[in-house]
């Protein structure tokens, strides 16, 4: 502890004199970037979760085939959670113009807990957000019912024994849009009128739901407490348990944000390493003197480590504050962007920022600290005595190790973290090897170069080590910038393009086999593309191999729910181009042994492997066949997809209906009515609301990522600055010596220029190669869009590297060229 006061005293002056400012600045920007990302991502993630919750109607839903037991309600109240209940069942409804099957939903006053319904105004005017839910005695009805049964606003309809007044027409219902197979149009009524309908009786097909919402921690506690208490026929769904589209969007969002913060961390480490090294070089003579005065190696280490730690603490605190401010500004800018208010950020990102700052400082200042520790005392007598440099790779191993751990942690996703890590490691390894070879190669060219160029290249070679560090640091910085600007735009554009404009927005279901040619012809008549029609048979999974399947055989809730329900089975001869085999092989169309192909996600959930035999029960008939392949399906393509597909010949004899998805251009909504008029048994489901949700989420994410990337660019600029100034002192001194020896300004500029240009071009090459490689991995592996080589990336890399570094370098070392030599020499003395 005796070293702390010394460190404090030294730091006061060091910070004042500016030696530590670069380090503090690097750390400040690093931590600011990390915490801005953290705070903002925290809030965005919260908002995304909330928006996704809107789709669910609450944060968590208890679903039951009997009235939800009291303990579920009581526990929610005890946790201070808001609740709402819904009761849904199909029933015939009658209006002045006819009757129709409807999906009745009786809701409590608090419904919906998350999100709002939208209803059309008086006389089908522009739709607006609804206040709460229908008052007792009234119903809100889905559009199709208006004409089908005569249920316009003000008219009365009968629901069971009750007569209720239509008060509004529903245009958007947040919590039902994903239920493709909820066939009948919705009638929303007040729970208070439920008894009067007389429809809820023993044996009727009723689903009871308890919607729960509130503080995230309380919800999590509730989830944890109640799941074990679920009885038969009961289940709990959170946003993550359901709705593959939303989950995919959310996961993608989190990956993007994870990636963005990951880059900030890498940049931070480079800046910190460079700054710490420069700091330590400045402390070299002081350390030698302290050794001379009796300081042990441990004292030298401690005195300097304390300074770094103190600097880090200051940098982290300021950076965290700045990060908090920046995210507030950012949130302001995003006002109105989210349909929900951005939740306040948690404290976790602050801790995360502090931990990252400290870990970076300790991890990347260790080599310079070890170097100081080893300063030979003899330096007080002979300033030319070299300091033993710890082998940088070994010394930075701790830093790199912690950085790796950080990356994985930040990514919050082992796969993404490991992948990025592998990418960076490979890129840096290749960069180091290539950089070394190139520096040596260039240096060899110097014999053929003229005056200043020869000195410049000689300098490059003489400083092979530090040149290499600069090439790599700048390479990483430029690579990040390339990734953030060119590659990012490229990827985001491509990703958004991967959601095509003519993406299906309607499902037509319940088409009968004998209607297929007619439906196809009618689509053509309406001027729509011929739809792909898929057969569908509903069946229950009874056994996997010789294991009988029942909900009780699974721990996992999702698995339980899946096997509780009937599956939609389909059959196909050929593999669809938008499905991809990930295990096994698709059947030969001519093979006649029955086979199944199973979607990989559900196979994992239900532990189905290639080679397993699946036994099914379809309408009382049992049959089985082997699984010969697993498929990857793009759920967010909004095409009809199936968990299980059978080879031809297995399902054809069972009663089937056909399903298709199609794109209905806006303005042609009348087509739906005509289609339904022509084929009354067919139901058309409108997907635009859910698609709107998914698109909004992805738009929000890309906006957020863009902002977050801006920060990483700032961090990249700090790296650039740190890298250039890391050799500034040396250059100023050399410049002064050259001046003294009569070098002209032009000669000096050229000498510097040639060295910087070489470093910049090498860094540009490293950066371009790295950016292309990473983009390839990211786009193919993370985003799932094919990568196309973009030649602008390497060109921009070389330009940014060469020109950028040369200009920045010359500016940074202007002092070397412009100041009178004696002043320059003395300033360093």
């Amino acid at each position: 502890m005796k070293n702390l006061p010394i460190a404090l005293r030294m730091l006061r002056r060091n910070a004042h004199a500016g030696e530590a400012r670069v380090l503090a600045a690097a750390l400040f920007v690093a931590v600011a970037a990390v915490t801005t990302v953290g705070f903002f991502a925290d809030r965005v993630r919260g908002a995304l979760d909330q928006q996704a919750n809107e789709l669910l109607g609450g944060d968590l839903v208890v679903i039951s085939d009997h009235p939800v037991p009291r303990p579920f309600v009581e526990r929610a109240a005890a946790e201070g959670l808001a609740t709402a209940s819904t009761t849904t069942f199909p029933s015939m409804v009658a209006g002045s113009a006819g009757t129709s099957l409807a999906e009745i939903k009786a809701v409590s006053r608090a419904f919906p807990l998350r999100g709002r319904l939208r209803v059309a105004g008086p006389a089908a005017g522009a739709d607006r957000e609804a206040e709460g839910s229908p008052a007792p005695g009234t119903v809100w009805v889905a559009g199709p019912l208006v004409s089908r049964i005569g249920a316009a606003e003000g008219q009365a309809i009968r629901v069971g024994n009750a007569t209720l007044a239509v008060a509004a027409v529903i245009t958007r219902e947040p919590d039902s849009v994903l239920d493709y197979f909820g066939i009948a149009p919705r009638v929303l009524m007040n729970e208070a009128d439920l008894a009067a309908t007389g429809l809820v009786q023993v044996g009727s097909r009723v689903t009871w739901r308890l919607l729960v919402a509130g503080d995230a921690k309380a919800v999590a506690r509730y989830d944890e407490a109640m799941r074990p208490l679920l009885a038969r026929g009961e289940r709990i769904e959170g946003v993550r348990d359901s709705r593959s589209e939303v989950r995919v969007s959310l996961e993608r969002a989190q990956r993007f944000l994870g990636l963005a913060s990951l880059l900030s961390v890498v940049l931070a480490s480079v800046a910190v390493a460079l700054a710490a090294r420069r700091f330590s070089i400045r402390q070299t003579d002081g350390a030698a003197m302290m050794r001379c005065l009796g300081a042990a190696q441990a004292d030298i280490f401690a005195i300097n480590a304390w300074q770094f730690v103190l600097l880090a603490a200051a940098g982290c605190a300021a950076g965290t504050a700045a990060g908090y401010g920046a995210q507030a500004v950012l949130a302001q800018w995003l006002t109105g962007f989210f349909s929900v208010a951005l939740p306040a950020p948690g404290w976790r990102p602050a801790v995360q920022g502090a931990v990252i700052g400290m870990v970076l400082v300790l991890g990347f200042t260790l080599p310079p600290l070890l170097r100081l520790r080893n300063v030979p005392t003899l330096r007080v007598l002979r300033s030319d005595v070299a300091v033993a440099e710890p082998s940088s790779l070994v010394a930075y191993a701790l830093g790199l190790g912690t950085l790796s751990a950080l990356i994985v942690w930040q990514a919050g996703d082992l796969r993404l973290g490991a992948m990025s890590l592998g990418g960076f490691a490979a890129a840096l390894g290749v960069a180091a090897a290539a950089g070394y070879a190139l520096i040596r190669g260039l240096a060899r060219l110097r014999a053929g170069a003229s005056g200043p160029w020869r000195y410049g290249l000689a300098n490059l070679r003489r400083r092979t080590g530090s040149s290499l560090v600069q090439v790599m640091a700048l390479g990483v910085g430029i690579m990040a910038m390339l990734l953030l600007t060119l590659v990012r735009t490229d990827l985001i554009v491509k990703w958004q393009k991967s959601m095509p404009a003519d993406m299906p927005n309607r499902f037509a279901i319940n088409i009968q086999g004998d209607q297929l040619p007619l439906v196809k012809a009618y689509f053509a008549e309406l001027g729509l593309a011929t739809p792909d029609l898929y057969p569908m048979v509903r069946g229950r999974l009874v056994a996997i191999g010789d294991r009988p399947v029942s909900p009780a055989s699974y721990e996992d809730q999702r698995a339980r729910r899946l096997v509780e329900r009937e599956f939609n089975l389909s059959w196909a001869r050929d593999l669809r181009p938008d499905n991809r085999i990930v295990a096994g092989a698709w059947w030969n169309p001519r093979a006649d042994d029955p086979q199944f192909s199973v979607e990989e996600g559900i196979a994992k959930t239900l532990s189905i492997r290639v080679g397993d035999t699946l036994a099914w029960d379809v309408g009382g008939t049992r049959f089985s066949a082997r699984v010969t392949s697993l498929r990857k399906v793009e759920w967010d393509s909004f095409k009809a997809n199936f968990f299980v597909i059978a080879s031809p010949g297995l399902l054809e004899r069972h009663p089937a209906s056909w399903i298709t998805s199609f794109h209905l251009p806006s303005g042609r909504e009348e087509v739906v009515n005509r289609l339904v008029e022509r084929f009354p048994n067919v139901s058309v489901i409108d997907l635009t609301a859910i698609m709107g949700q998914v698109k909004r989420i992805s738009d929000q994410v890309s906006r957020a990522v863009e902002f977050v990337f801006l920060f990483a660019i700032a961090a990249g600029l700090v790296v650039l600055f740190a890298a250039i100034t890391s050799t500034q002192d040396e250059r100023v001194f050399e410049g002064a010596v050259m001046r003294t020896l009569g070098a002209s300004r032009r000669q000096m500029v050229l000498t510097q220029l040639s060295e910087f240009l070489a470093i910049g071009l090498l860094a540009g090459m490293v950066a371009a190669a790295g950016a292309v490689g990473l983009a390839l991995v990211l786009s193919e592996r993370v985003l799932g869009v094919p990568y196309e080589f973009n030649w602008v990336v390497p060109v921009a890399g070389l330009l940014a590297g060469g020109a950028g570094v040369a200009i920045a370098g010359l500016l940074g070392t202007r002092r070397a060229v412009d100041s009178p030599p004696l002043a320059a020499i003395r300033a360093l003395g």
Partner: protein
Amino acid sequence: MNAIRETQDDGALPAVQPVIVRAEGLTKQVSTPDHELTIVRGATFQVAAGESVAIVGASGSGKSTLLGLLAGLDVPTAGRVWIDGEELFAQDEDGRARLRGRLVGFVFQSFQLLPALTALENVMLPLELAGLADASARASRVLGQVGLADRLGHYPRQLSGGEQQRVAVARAFATEPKLLFADEPTGNLDSATGAQVIELLFAMNRERGTTLVLVTHDEALARRCDRRIAISAGVVEA
């Protein structure tokens, strides 16, 4: 103290005098690209406690190297050194550092003050490193003795060369070392300022009975010492 000095004239020390520095066969070789260069060759001598000794020789003759070896700032190729009876190179780097902190003070040609610390803090540094409690009071007292009582809060950059060297002298004496090494302490100073610093060095040497080992190529300065050790091309001439 005076008794010791009276025995100086013939350069031989009576065995009864306490020896503070003893060098035996001290040799330093370095490898250069084409051959082995011997900078110091077989230096053997003793310095008695309280003595002041000038190491003299031409520039490049190996004076600084020898001084560095005596203080344990560098490791010899061969030979041994005892400081106050402790064998210097039998210890590790940190052991030597501790020994220096306890027994040795330094003054260098280039002052070697830490630019980050004020005059007072520079003088406090060795006291704090030694873990002494009243570092600040002692340091300001010594700075007062070298005439810098009013410059305590100044940084090296704000001080003239002579003042900086006086701070360095104060730092050297602050721990009350038994032994003071000085390598051309006036080399970077004009002659008047240099003379002042020398006066100071000798005054403090006298007052505290500190042994002074001083490297110089300045004949006048060498003459002020009790004894001289001449070195030429790395060989000590007795």
